[in-house]
Protein backbone atom coordinates (compact mmCIF):
# COMPACT_ATOMS: atom_id res chain seq x y z
CA UNK A 1 0.00 0.00 0.00
CA UNK A 2 1.54 3.28 -1.14
CA UNK A 3 1.77 6.36 1.07
CA UNK A 4 3.15 8.40 -1.82
CA UNK A 5 0.42 10.24 -3.75
CA UNK A 6 -0.16 8.76 -7.17
CA UNK A 7 -1.89 11.93 -8.36
CA UNK A 8 -0.83 15.53 -7.95
CA UNK A 9 -2.82 18.21 -6.17
CA UNK A 10 -5.11 20.21 -8.42
CA UNK A 11 -5.30 23.00 -5.86
CA UNK A 12 -2.37 25.43 -6.14
CA UNK A 13 -0.32 25.66 -2.97
CA UNK A 14 -1.87 22.61 -1.33
CA UNK A 15 -0.33 19.16 -0.97
CA UNK A 16 -2.08 16.15 -2.43
CA UNK A 17 -4.96 15.13 -0.17
CA UNK A 18 -8.44 13.88 -0.92
CA UNK A 19 -9.94 17.31 -1.53
CA UNK A 20 -7.08 18.68 -3.60
CA UNK A 21 -6.85 15.52 -5.71
CA UNK A 22 -10.60 15.32 -6.23
CA UNK A 23 -10.35 18.91 -7.48
CA UNK A 24 -9.13 17.40 -10.76
CA UNK A 25 -12.81 16.54 -11.21
CA UNK A 26 -14.79 19.56 -9.91
CA UNK A 27 -18.21 18.10 -10.72
CA UNK A 28 -17.48 14.86 -8.88
CA UNK A 29 -16.13 16.83 -5.92
CA UNK A 30 -19.16 19.11 -5.82
CA UNK A 31 -21.65 16.26 -5.90
CA UNK A 32 -19.72 14.14 -3.43
CA UNK A 33 -19.46 16.86 -0.79
CA UNK A 34 -23.12 17.85 -1.30
CA UNK A 35 -24.15 14.23 -0.75
CA UNK A 36 -21.78 13.57 2.15
CA UNK A 37 -22.88 16.71 3.97
CA UNK A 38 -26.54 15.79 3.63
CA UNK A 39 -25.86 12.24 4.74
CA UNK A 40 -24.18 13.41 7.95
CA UNK A 41 -26.76 16.14 8.43
CA UNK A 42 -29.67 13.71 8.34
CA UNK A 43 -30.83 12.51 11.71
CA UNK A 44 -32.79 9.49 10.46
CA UNK A 45 -29.87 7.43 11.79
CA UNK A 46 -27.77 8.78 14.65
CA UNK A 47 -24.29 10.12 13.93
CA UNK A 48 -23.00 7.76 16.58
CA UNK A 49 -24.16 4.67 14.68
CA UNK A 50 -22.85 6.13 11.42
CA UNK A 51 -19.48 6.71 13.05
CA UNK A 52 -19.40 3.20 14.50
CA UNK A 53 -19.92 1.82 10.99
CA UNK A 54 -17.30 4.19 9.56
CA UNK A 55 -14.76 3.04 12.15
CA UNK A 56 -15.42 -0.60 11.32
CA UNK A 57 -14.95 0.08 7.62
CA UNK A 58 -11.69 1.91 8.37
CA UNK A 59 -10.33 -1.11 10.20
CA UNK A 60 -11.36 -3.69 7.62
CA UNK A 61 -10.22 -1.70 4.57
CA UNK A 62 -7.02 -0.61 6.38
CA UNK A 63 -7.69 3.06 5.74
CA UNK A 64 -5.34 4.82 8.19
CA UNK A 65 -6.75 8.27 7.46
CA UNK A 66 -10.34 7.15 8.08
CA UNK A 67 -9.25 5.30 11.19
CA UNK A 68 -7.68 8.33 12.84
CA UNK A 69 -10.42 10.83 12.09
CA UNK A 70 -13.36 11.34 14.45
CA UNK A 71 -16.38 13.44 13.55
CA UNK A 72 -17.46 15.78 16.33
CA UNK A 73 -21.18 15.05 16.01
CA UNK A 74 -20.63 11.44 17.03
CA UNK A 75 -18.34 12.49 19.88
CA UNK A 76 -21.09 14.83 21.07
CA UNK A 77 -23.50 11.88 20.98
CA UNK A 78 -21.27 10.07 23.46
CA UNK A 79 -19.01 7.93 21.31
CA UNK A 80 -15.89 7.56 23.46
CA UNK A 81 -12.54 6.04 22.54
CA UNK A 82 -13.18 3.07 24.81
CA UNK A 83 -16.19 2.14 22.66
CA UNK A 84 -14.27 2.82 19.43
CA UNK A 85 -11.61 0.45 20.72
CA UNK A 86 -14.25 -2.27 20.90
CA UNK A 87 -15.01 -1.99 17.17
CA UNK A 88 -12.58 -4.81 16.50
CA UNK A 89 -13.11 -8.49 15.89
CA UNK A 90 -15.15 -9.75 18.81
CA UNK A 91 -17.29 -6.60 19.06
CA UNK A 92 -20.28 -8.85 19.65
CA UNK A 93 -19.24 -9.20 23.31
CA UNK A 94 -18.62 -5.50 23.96
CA UNK A 95 -20.40 -4.01 26.96
CA UNK A 96 -19.84 -0.48 25.61
CA UNK A 97 -21.59 -0.94 22.27
CA UNK A 98 -25.38 -1.10 22.15
CA UNK A 99 -27.31 -3.92 20.53
CA UNK A 100 -28.32 -1.56 17.73
CA UNK A 101 -24.66 -0.70 17.14
CA UNK A 102 -23.69 -4.36 17.09
CA UNK A 103 -26.45 -5.03 14.54
CA UNK A 104 -25.15 -2.13 12.43
CA UNK A 105 -21.62 -3.53 12.69
CA UNK A 106 -22.78 -6.93 11.46
CA UNK A 107 -24.48 -5.26 8.51
CA UNK A 108 -21.26 -3.32 7.85
CA UNK A 109 -19.21 -6.52 7.88
CA UNK A 110 -21.69 -8.17 5.52
CA UNK A 111 -21.55 -5.31 3.05
CA UNK A 112 -17.81 -4.76 3.03
CA UNK A 113 -16.69 -8.35 3.56
CA UNK A 114 -19.15 -11.22 3.27
CA UNK A 115 -22.91 -10.97 2.58
CA UNK A 116 -23.42 -14.38 4.17
CA UNK A 117 -22.79 -12.75 7.56
CA UNK A 118 -26.24 -11.17 7.37
CA UNK A 119 -28.45 -14.21 7.57
CA UNK A 120 -30.78 -15.60 10.20
CA UNK A 121 -30.37 -13.99 13.61
CA UNK A 122 -28.11 -11.18 12.36
CA UNK A 123 -30.66 -10.09 9.78
CA UNK A 124 -33.48 -10.31 12.29
CA UNK A 125 -31.49 -8.27 14.81
CA UNK A 126 -30.80 -5.56 12.24
CA UNK A 127 -34.49 -5.30 11.37
CA UNK A 128 -35.44 -5.33 15.06
CA UNK A 129 -33.13 -2.48 15.99
CA UNK A 130 -33.28 -0.31 12.88
CA UNK A 131 -36.18 0.83 10.73
CA UNK A 132 -36.06 0.32 6.95
CA UNK A 133 -35.30 4.04 6.53
CA UNK A 134 -32.42 3.78 8.98
CA UNK A 135 -31.06 0.70 7.20
CA UNK A 136 -31.21 2.59 3.89
CA UNK A 137 -29.21 5.43 5.39
CA UNK A 138 -26.74 3.01 6.97
CA UNK A 139 -26.36 1.30 3.60
CA UNK A 140 -25.62 4.63 1.95
CA UNK A 141 -23.06 5.42 4.61
CA UNK A 142 -21.22 2.12 4.38
CA UNK A 143 -21.22 2.34 0.58
CA UNK A 144 -19.65 5.79 0.72
CA UNK A 145 -17.20 4.88 3.51
CA UNK A 146 -16.03 1.84 1.57
CA UNK A 147 -15.69 3.63 -1.76
CA UNK A 148 -13.98 6.62 -0.17
CA UNK A 149 -11.49 4.43 1.71
CA UNK A 150 -10.61 2.41 -1.39
CA UNK A 151 -10.23 5.56 -3.48
CA UNK A 152 -7.97 7.10 -0.83
CA UNK A 153 -5.81 4.00 -0.62
CA UNK A 154 -5.49 3.37 -4.35
CA UNK A 155 -4.72 7.02 -5.08
CA UNK A 156 -1.83 6.78 -2.62
CA UNK A 157 -3.33 9.28 -0.19
CA UNK A 158 -2.78 7.29 2.98
CA UNK A 159 -0.70 9.16 5.58
CA UNK A 160 2.56 7.60 6.75
CA UNK A 161 1.62 8.62 10.28
CA UNK A 162 -1.32 10.51 11.67
CA UNK A 163 -2.52 11.50 15.13
CA UNK A 164 -6.11 10.99 16.14
CA UNK A 165 -7.97 14.06 14.92
CA UNK A 166 -11.48 15.28 15.74
CA UNK A 167 -12.91 17.11 12.72
CA UNK A 168 -16.12 19.05 12.21
CA UNK A 169 -18.78 16.71 10.86
CA UNK A 170 -19.23 17.15 7.09
CA UNK A 171 -22.02 19.58 6.36
CA UNK A 172 -23.67 21.18 3.37
CA UNK A 173 -22.26 24.62 2.70
CA UNK A 174 -25.31 26.84 2.27
CA UNK A 175 -23.34 29.27 0.12
CA UNK A 176 -22.90 26.50 -2.42
CA UNK A 177 -26.64 25.96 -2.74
Amino acid at each position, binding site marked *: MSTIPRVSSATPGEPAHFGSVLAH*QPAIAEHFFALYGRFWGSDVLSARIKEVARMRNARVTQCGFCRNVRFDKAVAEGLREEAVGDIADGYETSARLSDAEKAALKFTD*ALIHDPDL*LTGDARAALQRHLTPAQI*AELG*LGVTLFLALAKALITL*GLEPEAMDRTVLPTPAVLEAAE
Partner: protein
Amino acid sequence: MSGGPLVAALAGNPVLAEHYAAFRASADAALDPAFVALTRQAVAAVHRMGPAPDESGLDEGTRTCLAYAHRMPFEHTAITDAEAAAVSAHLGEAGYVAFSVLTALADAECRAELVGLPELAGV
Protein backbone atom coordinates in the same frame (compact mmCIF):
# COMPACT_ATOMS: atom_id res chain seq x y z
CA MET B 1 -33.17 8.86 -12.32
CA SER B 2 -30.97 5.72 -12.30
CA GLY B 3 -28.45 4.69 -9.76
CA GLY B 4 -28.35 1.03 -8.89
CA PRO B 5 -29.24 -0.42 -5.50
CA LEU B 6 -28.59 2.72 -3.49
CA VAL B 7 -31.10 4.88 -5.29
CA ALA B 8 -33.61 2.05 -5.02
CA ALA B 9 -32.96 1.66 -1.29
CA LEU B 10 -33.29 5.40 -0.73
CA ALA B 11 -36.72 5.60 -2.35
CA GLY B 12 -38.14 6.85 0.94
CA ASN B 13 -35.60 9.66 1.14
CA PRO B 14 -35.78 11.52 -2.19
CA VAL B 15 -33.21 14.14 -1.19
CA LEU B 16 -30.46 11.63 -0.45
CA ALA B 17 -31.51 9.51 -3.44
CA GLU B 18 -31.28 12.48 -5.78
CA HIS B 19 -27.89 13.54 -4.46
CA TYR B 20 -26.52 10.02 -4.62
CA ALA B 21 -27.70 9.68 -8.23
CA ALA B 22 -26.07 13.01 -9.08
CA PHE B 23 -22.78 11.95 -7.52
CA ARG B 24 -22.81 8.62 -9.34
CA ALA B 25 -23.70 10.30 -12.62
CA SER B 26 -20.88 12.81 -12.23
CA ALA B 27 -18.32 10.01 -12.01
CA ASP B 28 -19.84 8.29 -15.03
CA ALA B 29 -19.93 11.51 -17.04
CA ALA B 30 -16.21 12.10 -16.59
CA LEU B 31 -15.34 9.05 -18.68
CA ASP B 32 -16.39 7.52 -21.99
CA PRO B 33 -19.78 5.79 -21.58
CA ALA B 34 -18.64 2.54 -23.19
CA PHE B 35 -15.57 2.48 -20.94
CA VAL B 36 -17.78 3.08 -17.88
CA ALA B 37 -19.98 0.16 -18.86
CA LEU B 38 -16.97 -2.12 -19.35
CA THR B 39 -15.55 -1.09 -15.97
CA ARG B 40 -18.81 -1.75 -14.14
CA GLN B 41 -19.08 -5.11 -15.91
CA ALA B 42 -15.51 -6.04 -14.93
CA VAL B 43 -16.16 -5.23 -11.27
CA ALA B 44 -19.49 -7.07 -11.25
CA ALA B 45 -17.83 -10.13 -12.78
CA VAL B 46 -15.41 -10.32 -9.84
CA HIS B 47 -18.46 -10.49 -7.58
CA ARG B 48 -19.91 -13.22 -9.83
CA MET B 49 -22.82 -10.99 -10.72
CA GLY B 50 -22.39 -11.37 -14.47
CA PRO B 51 -19.98 -12.33 -17.23
CA ALA B 52 -16.60 -10.67 -17.61
CA PRO B 53 -16.35 -8.22 -20.49
CA ASP B 54 -15.15 -9.47 -23.84
CA GLU B 55 -11.73 -7.89 -24.07
CA SER B 56 -10.96 -9.03 -27.61
CA GLY B 57 -10.61 -5.98 -29.77
CA LEU B 58 -9.94 -3.64 -26.85
CA ASP B 59 -6.81 -1.52 -26.91
CA GLU B 60 -3.98 -2.23 -24.47
CA GLY B 61 -4.74 0.84 -22.35
CA THR B 62 -8.33 -0.20 -21.81
CA ARG B 63 -7.27 -3.72 -20.91
CA THR B 64 -4.80 -2.28 -18.41
CA CYS B 65 -7.61 -0.29 -16.79
CA LEU B 66 -9.90 -3.32 -16.64
CA ALA B 67 -7.15 -5.35 -14.98
CA TYR B 68 -6.88 -2.59 -12.39
CA ALA B 69 -10.67 -2.56 -11.89
CA HIS B 70 -10.57 -6.31 -11.47
CA ARG B 71 -8.35 -5.89 -8.39
CA MET B 72 -10.49 -3.29 -6.65
CA PRO B 73 -12.99 -5.63 -4.92
CA PHE B 74 -10.55 -7.84 -3.03
CA GLU B 75 -7.01 -6.63 -3.71
CA HIS B 76 -7.16 -2.85 -3.41
CA THR B 77 -4.22 -2.67 -0.99
CA ALA B 78 -2.04 -4.73 -3.37
CA ILE B 79 -2.37 -2.41 -6.38
CA THR B 80 1.14 -1.25 -7.16
CA ASP B 81 2.53 2.13 -8.08
CA ALA B 82 3.33 0.72 -11.53
CA GLU B 83 -0.26 -0.40 -12.10
CA ALA B 84 -1.56 2.98 -11.00
CA ALA B 85 0.93 4.78 -13.21
CA ALA B 86 -0.13 2.72 -16.22
CA VAL B 87 -3.79 3.64 -15.71
CA SER B 88 -2.90 7.28 -15.16
CA ALA B 89 -0.81 7.28 -18.33
CA HIS B 90 -3.78 5.98 -20.30
CA LEU B 91 -6.49 8.18 -18.78
CA GLY B 92 -4.52 11.20 -17.61
CA GLU B 93 -4.51 12.36 -13.99
CA ALA B 94 -8.05 13.70 -14.03
CA GLY B 95 -9.28 10.56 -15.74
CA TYR B 96 -7.49 8.39 -13.21
CA VAL B 97 -9.23 10.23 -10.37
CA ALA B 98 -12.63 9.68 -11.98
CA PHE B 99 -11.77 6.05 -12.69
CA SER B 100 -10.79 5.51 -9.04
CA VAL B 101 -14.14 6.86 -7.88
CA LEU B 102 -15.99 4.84 -10.51
CA THR B 103 -14.34 1.52 -9.66
CA ALA B 104 -14.59 1.99 -5.89
CA LEU B 105 -18.24 2.96 -6.15
CA ALA B 106 -19.02 0.11 -8.56
CA ASP B 107 -17.52 -2.35 -6.08
CA ALA B 108 -19.49 -0.91 -3.16
CA GLU B 109 -22.72 -0.98 -5.17
CA CYS B 110 -22.22 -4.64 -6.04
CA ARG B 111 -21.78 -5.35 -2.35
CA ALA B 112 -24.91 -3.39 -1.46
CA GLU B 113 -26.82 -5.46 -4.00
CA LEU B 114 -25.40 -8.72 -2.67
CA VAL B 115 -26.37 -7.88 0.90
CA GLY B 116 -29.91 -7.16 -0.28
CA LEU B 117 -29.99 -3.50 0.69
CA PRO B 118 -33.12 -2.50 -1.25
CA GLU B 119 -35.10 -5.32 0.34
CA LEU B 120 -33.80 -4.47 3.81
CA ALA B 121 -34.83 -0.88 3.18
CA GLY B 122 -38.36 -2.04 2.52
CA VAL B 123 -38.34 -1.58 -1.24
